[in-house]
């Protein structure tokens, strides 16, 4: 019997040990997602970007924390690709940040699956005051009349070039309004001037389906339709891939292995910054980064090439903030979003980091303090927003479609499939993801 007592004693001391260890751990995890010290609330905020952006956002967050001493903001950031991988994992694991950065392309994957909080209530009650936002800016964050995200900045992609590079090559700058035919001529001209030193532009045939989207829209179609079906036909895809395949065969754009090698490299090492290519498709809010990095010439943007008498490719794009449905502190999160997008000091730090602020007053505040490349970006955005036309939100499964598109484009680039085969394979499989 005595032996039993000793064993019991040992056992309970063990339990105590385990329990204490556990306690410490739960305190630790509280720090990252819940209440820390008395009355203090911790929210988390995640975004994508480079080191420059991280510095700016940290500065804004510091300001917010100084004004709201009872709220602490946990900061999570990473590159674009990693950002989305991580967000999926976090959301599915139930530990998504309270405030997440969002994008038109992915918002529906999250909103339609119930991972994002409907912000209508906050906006109506004035808790999230968006009175400075023009109607169109608020609408751009809506899905079916529900506000799921608030614009940090509005931006548009353009084709950018460095004046010094063009001058050195003796090639004339492209026209602001140019067609795909002009583009192909210019690309060939560039290649001729560059010789073996580089290529006209990186391969846009497969990286992001958004590139195809412009082309499809110019053909009066789209990647997807309002009711969640495939929005383009085989002919559009064939024309698109054939154009790039021809450019590749003429060595005007890099071969597949070279493209692969440069994939996902940071700004300072990518093909445009290292002058391996002379043109780049880029959200224009990033123009100033390249001008700083390259150290000579000016970065200018022209419109996406278009089809003569065709439709408009442009639609309003931007970077947004959302609150996740799993958040325990939605009110604080809303407060943070309001601060980030409308506070005078915050906006002055933000400037045009992800495009000019969506609010009217906010963007007026910013415009005076801009550097020349940032001003050029704002002008470009104003001009293209003017001509842009509304676009449907991506249905569920856009991730799968994007992978399918990239796989087939790569197969053409490496010479594994003909354009014809790739189009057929794509169309067949796409129909199993988005049934007709």
């Amino acid at each position, binding site marked *: 019997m005595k032996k*039993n007592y000793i*064993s019991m004693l040992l*056992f309970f001391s*063990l339990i105590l040990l*385990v329990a204490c260890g556990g306690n410490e751990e739960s305190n630790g995890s509280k720090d990252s997602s819940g209440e820390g010290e008395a009355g203090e609330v911790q929210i988390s905020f995640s975004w994508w970007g480079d080191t420059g952006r991280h510095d700016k956002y940290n500065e804004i967050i510091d300001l917010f924390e100084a004004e709201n001493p009872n709220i602490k903001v946990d900061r999570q950031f990473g590159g674009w*690709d990693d950002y*989305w*991988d991580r967000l*999926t*994992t976090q*959301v*599915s694991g139930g530990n998504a940040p309270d405030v997440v950065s969002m994008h038109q392309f992915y918002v529906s*994957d*999250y909103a339609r*699956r*119930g*991972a994002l909080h409907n912000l209508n209530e906050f906006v109506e009650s004035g808790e999230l005051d968006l009175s400075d936002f023009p109607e169109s800016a608020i609408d751009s964050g809506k899905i079916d009349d529900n506000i799921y995200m608030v614009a940090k900045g509005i931006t548009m992609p353009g084709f950018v070039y460095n004046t010094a590079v063009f001058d050195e090559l003796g090639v004339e700058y492209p026209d602001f309004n140019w067609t795909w035919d002009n583009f192909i001529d210019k690309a060939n001209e560039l290649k001729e001037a560059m010789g073996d030193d580089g290529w006209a532009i990186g391969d846009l045939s497969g990286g992001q389906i958004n590139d195809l989207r412009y082309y499809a829209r110019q053909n009066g179609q789209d990647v997807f339709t309002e009711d969640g079906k495939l929005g383009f036909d085989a002919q559009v895809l064939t024309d698109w891939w054939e154009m790039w395949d021809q450019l590749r065969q003429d060595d005007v754009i890099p071969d*597949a*292995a*070279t493209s*692969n*090698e440069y*994939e*996902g490299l940071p700004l300072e090492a990518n093909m445009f910054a290292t002058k391996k290519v002379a043109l780049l498709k880029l959200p224009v809010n990033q123009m100033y980064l390249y001008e700083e990095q390259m150290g000579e010439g000016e970065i200018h943007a022209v419109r996406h090439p278009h089809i003569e008498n065709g439709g408009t490719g442009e639609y309003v794009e931007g970077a947004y903030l959302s609150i996740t449905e799993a958040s325990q502190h939605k009110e604080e999160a809303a407060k943070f979003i309001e601060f980030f997008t409308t506070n005078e000091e915050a906006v002055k730090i933000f400037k045009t980091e992800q495009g000019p602020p969506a609010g009217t007053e906010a963007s007026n505040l910013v415009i005076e303090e801009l550097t020349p490349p940032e001003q050029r970006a704002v002008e470009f955005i104003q001009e293209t927003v003017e001509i842009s036309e509304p676009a449907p939100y991506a249905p*569920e*499964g856009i*991730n*799968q479609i994007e*992978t399918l598109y*990239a*796989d087939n484009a*790569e*197969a053409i680039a*490496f010479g*594994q499939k003909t354009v014809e085969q790739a189009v057929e394979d794509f169309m067949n499989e796409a129909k199993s993801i988005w049934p007709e």
Partner: protein
Amino acid sequence: MGKFKSFWKDNWIGYLFLAPWMIGLVTLTAIPMGASLYFSFTNYDMFSAPTWIGLDNYTQLFSDEKWLESVRVTLIYVLIGVPLQLTFALFIATLLNKGISGLSLYRAIYYVPSLFGGSVAIAILWRQIFGGNGLINNLLSNIGIEGTNWISNPNTALYTLIVLMIWQFGASMVIFLAGLKQVPIELYESAKMDGASPWKQFSKITLPLITPVVFFNLVMGIIGAFQAFTPAYIVSGGTGGPLNSTLFYTLYLYQKGFTQFSMGYASAMAWFLLLAIAIATAIIFATSKKWVYYQG
């Protein structure tokens, strides 16, 4: 019933002490496994409730070309990588077993790659070494050969990962070394007297006597290789490219589950992998009677 009662009475303290680990095993391993088995029969996107679809996920596997591709890539990785790694490990172990001085130092040095070989840093380093302007091509250009970009070429990308696996030979080398030390030295002495060549000694004495160690390393190596993930994920930037040439089974599983929201499908893939590893291991065990010799 009575028997059970007395068993419980005699042993309950033992189980009490086991409890913390039993609880860990159940909550951290058994329950998640059970959940994934259930999900593998459902359509589950991680946000909304799973819906039962029976064996659909499993039957879909065989018509999924990308899945077949990932199986092919993984089989090549396992079937070429593991034997090469073991051969290399055995080769180094044999060299170290020659009675050189400073053995423990060498053993430690050769073991180092295995310690951090699976890390992200090494995978990034690999990208640099085998890149277009990487170390390998610089060396090759010194002797007048122009190398390709090994990582970006679909024909060579997988083999750079196999080289990475071989490079992590340390763990199996240490075990081989221990096995080699067990071989009785008098066998070599008498073989030498009979005039056996070094190769004869190796193939007729060493190899047969260390087959239990080869067997162990083979099983562990195959199980590990089937589950490899990090090198392919980092070297290909998570895509399994170029042209799916490094699309490891686990990488495709990850893509399905976490970037395409098909967790049910991914779970089915995981269970299929478990089955495949179990079968591969069973086959090795079944054949082991024919080629593994236990002394005494």
